[in-house]
Structure formats: C-alpha cells, structure tokens
C-alpha cells in the first residue's frame, strides 16, 4: 500500500498518509482510505509530508472526500505540506476549505 490510513492516538483523528505522488493513479486507494471511518473520529488529517508530486485529480479526490463525508461534521486538515505542494493548494484556493499546515 502506498497510502496508509490510521487512527491517531487521540482516537478522534483519522490520518491518511500519502507517498511521494498524489495523482490520478491514487483515485481508488484514496477513496478506500476513508471508507471505514470509525464513529468517534472528528478530524480527518491528510498528511502530505512525503508528497512531492501532485496533480489536479488530487484536488478532485480531496473535494470528493468532503462531499462523501458531508453528512458527518468533520474537520479537515492537510498537514506537513512541502512548500511546492502548499503552493499548489494555495493556487487552487484550497486553504479556504482545508486547514493547511
């Protein structure tokens, strides 16, 4: 698996961790990563610390995740972005829908 999804120590944060590429090849895997979200989860964190390459389908995947989970009130975070990745997210104004750090 190139994407890992785990419950964080606090039992309330679901962390989805990508590898170096977050692009159209990850559509299925990324979708699977939030299919079985535990009840107690209040925050979904997408860790892009290892991610260097991104394309527009990644943005589609992020938006789709929010849409799919819209009936639950969840907070969304994108963390550990490299500057290049952060720039892509800012260009597409994703900072308005996600808490990016």
């Amino acid at each position: 698996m190139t994407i890992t999804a785990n419950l964080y120590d606090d039992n309330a944060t679901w962390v989805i961790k990508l590898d170096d590429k977050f692009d159209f090849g990850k559509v299925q895997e990324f979708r699977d990563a939030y299919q079985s979200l535990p009840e107690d989860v209040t925050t979904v964190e997408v860790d892009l610390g290892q991610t260097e390459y991104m394309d527009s389908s990644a943005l589609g995947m992020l938006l789709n995740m929010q849409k799919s989970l819209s009936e639950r009130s969840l907070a969304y975070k994108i963390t550990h972005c490299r500057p290049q990745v952060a720039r892509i997210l800012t260009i597409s104004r994703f900072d308005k829908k996600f808490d990016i750090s």
Partner: protein
Amino acid sequence: MKILIIDDESLNRFLLLHMLEEEGYTDCYEAKNGQEGIQLAQEVQPDLVLLDVMMPGMDGFAVAPVLKEMAGDNYLPVIFITSLDDKESLARCLEVGGDDFVAKPFDKLILAAKIRAHDRIRQLTSKIEQQNQSLRYFQQSVDREHAIVEHIFNNAIVNKELVTDFFDFSLSPAAVFNGDVFLCESSPAGGLYFLVGDFTGHGLASAIGVLPVSRTFRFLARKGYSAGEIAAQLNTTLGSLLPPDMFCAAAVIEVDASGCRFNIWNGGLPSLLLKSSTNLSMYKVVSRHMALGILESDEFDAECEIIEGEPGDQLLVYTDGLMEVMDEHGKMADEEGVMSWFSSPETITAAFLFERAAEYRADSIQADDTTIVIFSCQSLEVLKEDFATNELPYSIHLTLQGRELNNPHIISSLMEMINSQPGMTLVRSDLYTILSEMFNNALEHGVLKLSSDLKSTPDGFHQYYQRRDTLLANLTEGEIAFKILFKPSESALDITISDSGDGFDVSALDEDCLTACYGRGICFLRELCESVRFSDNGSTLSVRLSMAK
C-alpha cells in the same frame, strides 16, 4: 663468541687464553696494550672484553670508555682483570664503564661463570635491540599509514563552506581519528541535507566507516533523495561493509529552502532538540529507529518525523559523547544535562555546550568522540545558486501511439530525462504537475474523448477514472506527441503537447479553480507557467516554464 684479551703481560694472556680454551671459547684475540686493543676491537667486533687495569700507556680505565663508546647501543661486556684490591679502584672500574671485575690471580671457576652471565645479558640485550628495531619500523609504517588515511579522510569529508556557513559546529575526536561524522550538502530542490553519525567505538577502526557514509550521503543528496531514502541506502551500504558488532547511530536531516522545515530520520542518536527563539520551549525528536548497518534492507523503516520551526529557532544535534560525561561522583550528565545547558535564553553556541561538558567532567579525560551541530532556522535560498542549469540548449521529442499510451511510466520517464539535466530538480514538483496536467488533458479529452461533466459528483468522479482505465486498456489508436525544449538564453523550458483528438472549445474553460470540478488543471498551468497557449482548435497545448531564480 669472540673474546678480546687486553693485557700487557704475556703470561697473563697465556693463562687467560688457556683457561678460555678449556671452557670451550676458541675464538679469542690478544692485544698487548690499550691502543692495540682498541684497534683490534674495531676489526674483530668482540662480544666480550677481558681488560687489564694496569698497563703502560693507555691503562684499562682509559680503554673501557673508548670500547663502550665504539659499541654504541650494543651491550659489550667489559670485565676488568685487576690486582688492585682497594675499594676505590674496584669502584672506579665500574664507574668508567666496566661491567664487572675479577681479581688477579683469577679464579677459573668465577671467571668462567661471569663470562657466561655477561653472555646471557648480551644475548638478551641484542634481542631487545632487535625488538626495538622492529618496533621502530612498525611505528614508522603505522605513522605513514595514518598520514595516508588522514589525507584520504581530509579529502573525503570536505563539507562545502557555502553549506557549512549555515551551521555552528564542534567536532572533538577522543583519538586521532574521529568515529563521529558531520556531513552537509546542498539539496537540488533548494535547502540542504545534513547528517550527524557516531560509529561504535572510536579511533581509526570506527572512523573507517565514515568513508562509505560520506560517499553515499553526498551522491544521494546531490540527487535530491529524501532523508528516509538516504538513511535506507546508508543502512544497506553499511550493512554489507561493517562487521556485525559495528554500526552507526545517525540522524539524517533534510531542511527545505525556507530553512524552517525539517524532515528527520533519527536512528540511535540522542534526541534532537528544537528550541523556540521566542518562548524557549523545546521539542524533542527522539530516536525511533535502530542505528544504521544493523537491520536487513527489508526490515528497515525509513519513516521520518517532520517538524517546523520559526526563523531564529535552533536545532541541536549531538552525539552521546556530549551527554555521557561523568562528574566526580560518577553521575552522567545525560540528555537532561544537555537540555539544561541548551535551555539558557541566549543563543547557544556549540563551543558553549562543549565547555559545559568539559566543566562537568572536571579533570577526567574526554572518553568519547563528541560532535555538536547547531542549525539556526534561516532562509536557504542562496544555496540554489549551487545548482547551475545547463549552458547548452537541448530538446526531447517523444511520440506515443495506441497501446504505448497505456504505460503507467510515461510521466516518470519524461521526468527522469529532464531531471538528469543539471539544475532541473529545483523545479521538479512544478514540472511534474505541468507534465501530468498536459498529458492527462491530451489523453483523457483528446484521445479517449472522456467528458469532464461526469466528474461533478463523487460517484461520477470515480466512474470517470474507471472509464479512463477501461478505455486505455483497449486503446489501439490515437497519438500524443511531446516536444520539450530547454532554452538557456531565455532560462526557459518550453513544453508542447499535441494529441490526435478533435480539440475543444477553448473559450468555454471555467476560470474558477475551487468551484469547478474540472478544468482545475488548466488553472494550475496558468499559475505555474509563464505562458499557456492552446492552438489547433485546442488539440495542441504549449506552455513555458521559467527557470529564472
């Protein structure tokens, strides 16, 4: 055994000769005065001298020191044969360099026993001299080998000043060779990498591992590998080289161009400390891995920790030599000790920490190699100048048809080709996004004729990519052509991509990247590129990526 008899009385000489012959010493020489004795000694190089004290001309007291002088470092026993029996004269025999004396008339038994005793001493001395000689030879060859190794080390572990300028560091080996290592190198993606390592033990045996570490680190750093990948490769290299009981505790740290973001792999080093310059709080990056060179490649965990600081914050990396100092009661300073030294409000220097450790251990000697490296968060933009782009233009043309388009490695191959050119890694993230958007646009809409309308719902989005896979797997016709040109005079990379499709209505593109569920790719291109231009009714797309820093 050669024995020289120096006596002016022939009767004495005759008696001595006779006695020696009886004892089995047949290689004997006679001299009838001091002068002659010295001359003969020079010729025959005796192993023992029987010397009369009272002689006309040079007496025994004068001859002995000359003989001793001639023998140099070799032990030449000189036994005085004397009729003098006052204590002063006997004492004088020994003072002038004699080794023993026998009273005249001499006793055969005593003299023979003394000759044997001095022969033993002589043999022992010559054995020691031989051993000393081989020791001297050994010492010389070791010195020479050390000089050569030192030379190689000095050449292998050169850190560029451009990069070391960003560090405050102190390297204090406990022996001539350092089993600790500090390496730093600029990153092709901007920013830098550094490594602090500590091999088992100290001295030459542990320092030897520094060579492959330095090579591998530099090679991978210049290529822009991640900290985790570098650690994994070092682990493999050391695993195959080092004996099982030797390994290297190390931290590999990647600092991005902002100089504030760290990607850290720590295997066996004391916790790294990031100290905030504003509130002095400290964050610990504890070792989460085993040292390098222990685990097999498939057991190795390249997981890194990412931390972020603010400009002016200090990141401290040190080897255990700093914290394992003992005070007079045998109490170790430990990580707590180092933390308390590091916690003072002022900006801490490596020299300051080393002094604290020296104070702590008071009079006892430094027992282990000690390395202290401090990085202060600051912009590393200037390091980008370390990577010049190609001075000559180049171009890459690639035309893919039908089945060839269903290859998952098209973008990565192109990336590899372009990134193999100097200076291109600086823009690799942007380049990947650009190539990926252009190619997917040409493939999905031009060749596969997929409509983005489908992507407006989550399920549709998913179906879209399923359709894409199915169509692609059965694709037999269609064509996509890349033309990539690097123009050094304009510091620009021009990328053109054409597809065999029908094109589309360029004017219908949505301008808003957030609300639109598609067309976001074009937004990216507009932001990342200096220019974006459609032609041939939308089936050709040309962009320019500026390389100007």
